[in-house]
């Protein structure tokens, strides 16, 4: 296939979505800083959003774009509560390392 006639099919977007999701998942497993782990969760949510919008266009169904709104709302709620928990943990102990808070008991 020549470069001039390159057609961007939905598969291209799906591959980028899958790669983004994998990078987010690996980051979640690799990192110890809770804030960065949260950012990796956001990456995974974005990959899911990208897949939704891609299928919305591929299947000609606006529902995919509507679902993205609900994902955004859930992401915003999750970040608000999650960051509040991180701030509460920080009051008790210094450092944002996930290994230090493996027990629910403080």
């Amino acid at each position, binding site marked *: 296939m020549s470069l001039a006639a390159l057609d961007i099919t939905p598969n291209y977007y799906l591959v*980028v979505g899958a790669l983004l999701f994998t*990078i987010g998942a690996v980051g979640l497993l690799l*990192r110890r800083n809770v804030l960065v782990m949260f950012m990796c969760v956001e990456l995974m949510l974005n990959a899911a959003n990208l897949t939704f919008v891609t299928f919305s266009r591929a299947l000609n169904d606006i529902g995919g774009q509507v679902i993205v709104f609900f994902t955004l709302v859930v992401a915003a709620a999750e970040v608000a509560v999650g960051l509040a928990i991180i701030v509460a943990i920080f009051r008790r102990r210094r450092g944002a390392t996930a290994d230090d808070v493996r027990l629910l008991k403080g």
Partner: protein
Amino acid sequence: MTVEAVLFFFAAALALGGAVGVVLGRNPVHCALLLVVTLVAVAIFFLLQEAQLVAAVQIIVYAGAIVVLFLFVIMLLGVDKDESLRDPIPYQRPAAVALGAILLAEIFVLAGRTWATGATSVRGSVRRRVDGQDLGNIQRVARTLFTDFLWAFELTAVLLVIAVVGAVVLARRSGQRAQLDEHEQAIEEQITEAELSEAAEEEEEEEEEEVVMP
């Protein structure tokens, strides 16, 4: 190459580069800023796929609100650069990379299966004319959001209220006052004393003004 192809590869490079930067960055502030790069690149993908409203909301909510919240918390808690490199589980890091590779392979295998049916539209079209009108993207999303998804839409309001109340309860100080260490308590007492003295001075000034006024 077509315009879409050029923009696609540009945005793909930005998105994947930013994502790798988020994972590998040492400084959490850099991670947050690289996250913005990825989010903007995903917004470009949305624009390329005729989802203009979602692209705008993506930038406003994610880059404008969520990442700013991240930066606020990073600044509030202090930038923590020294991350422990000790693995609590032996070989956790190589295992994480291996699991990531397996996950990617799994996604590609499953995506080729027949349950990704490619069924046609049920919720309203992205492009086709509705009732003889040529609707914009916002109108199409609104029609579906406020008819088929109305109940879910109302539930998101409840979810947001719960999240806000939960965040306030968790981040509130007064419930934990007894458990604060002495140093922190001493600082708080100093602050409250300073506030009290300031308030007293202000009251005095106000009283003086009142005397002058008549």
